[in-house]
């Protein structure tokens, strides 16, 4: 399940494994598969993001859509876009809710 997270000043390429736990990998081509990872990595990027930053998360897990929608609803950040390109789900989130 490859997915990327982009913020303004950083570009993450992240993978998650089919495991109890996902992990981030900088640089190389994304590879890897299935895990509850995208939200975990989103949260990691969110921690260092500022209001106004845009985070883009790519995932191949269809379960990502309800998770990211619930995250946005709960945290009060903005989901600018959710689209599907082939087998990839892309969420574009604007950070607006940070205190």
């Amino acid at each position: 399940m490859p997915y990327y997270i982009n913020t303004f000043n950083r570009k993450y390429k992240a993978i998650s494994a089919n495991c109890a736990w996902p992990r981030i990998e900088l640089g190389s081509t994304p590879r890897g598969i299935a895990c509850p990872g995208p939200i975990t990595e989103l949260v990691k990027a969110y921690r260092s993001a500022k209001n106004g930053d845009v985070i883009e998360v790519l995932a191949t897990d269809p379960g990502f859509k309800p998770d990211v929608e619930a995250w946005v609803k709960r945290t009060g950040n903005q989901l600018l876009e959710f689209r599907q390109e082939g087998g990839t789900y892309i969420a574009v989130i604007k950070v607006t809710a940070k205190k």
Partner: protein
Amino acid sequence: MKKRVVIIGGGAGGAIAANRLPLEEFDVTVIDSQPYHYYWPWLLYIAFKGSRRPMKAEIRSLLRPGVNFIQARAEAVDLANRRVQLEGGKAVEYDYLIAATGSGPNYSVIGGLDKAVEKYGDYHSTEANAWRVWDTINKLKGGTFAVIVGGDPYRCPPSPLEGVFLAEEFFRSRGLRDRVRVLFASPYPRPYPAEPMNEVVEPLLKERGIEYVTFFTLDHIDDEKKVAVSMEGEELKYDALVVIPPHAGADIKYSPPDVLTQDRFVQADKYTNNIKGFDDAFVIGDASAVPVAKTGVTAHLQATVVVKRILGEDARNTGRTNCPFDLGYGLGTFVISDFENPVVKLPPSRFSHLAKMAFAAAYWDMIKYPELWDPIIDAYFEATRPAKLRRFYG
């Protein structure tokens, strides 16, 4: 001449690798900054059961005769020149390197966390801090006991909820359950991030009246007001709290520096554990940035693969996890998965709990005598392959 294998770190991964390399072919040296090997899962039982069972042993006593041990801090690893720089100016050269340097809490990520740990303790750092948790729960006679996941990564994926379940059991056994509210908060969508395992634990949380808050990204702790504050400004009131701290890799410089991630984990191939770009250097266990759980099982299995690779075999990791998960009241389960299979929905049982305890009892023996335990461990992993278990448990 014998090839020199240098292993940094005498924990589970390092000691297992050291005890498996044939000494007639290799000159094996283990380096650690301090003399002890810790069985980290036991912090949980100090924190919530007040267990006095020893959780550390001298590294020297766990290594086979003939394996060298150097007690010194490794300061830098020069991958191109195959050198490990030690404190005090000494250096060790190697033909093969195994970095097994673990991970530890990084309190600086969350405001006020260092002070909170000093006051209430935690169970992901030291014995002293785990004893502080035991004091904290013994002193608490009413109010809210909160366990909060501070962020990824941390050792042992099930550990936050294990603490929650054991705390609830503790307060109930003391007759305080109607006065102490047990609260769990995590930044993720579900109490347990992997859905199949969540289907096992979420009903247990409800059944036991444990409250939980999801999507809570901890920003800072205000202990004057006794609130944990999220990044969106949401406040959780507590009377005592234990935070699972986000971890970082060991403070060792690498050359080239781009093998490290921002939080100092070493990037490697997930199948071979080769450090990115080097076929004579490996990183195993918590220290690596590969996408697998940070647990002793991972370190153990990766150590086995790396030893085989050094011996010339084309061994590869399967990504197998096997995290024991204490659910309180003598129940347990295991988080079992691999690169090809998602987490198995293994129902709670007394057997799983007993298996966890039996493993803990045999732990030191397993480290010391791999030739004795390997067949048993191999048989266990074969019998519990996720692809096989999924046929029963989905």
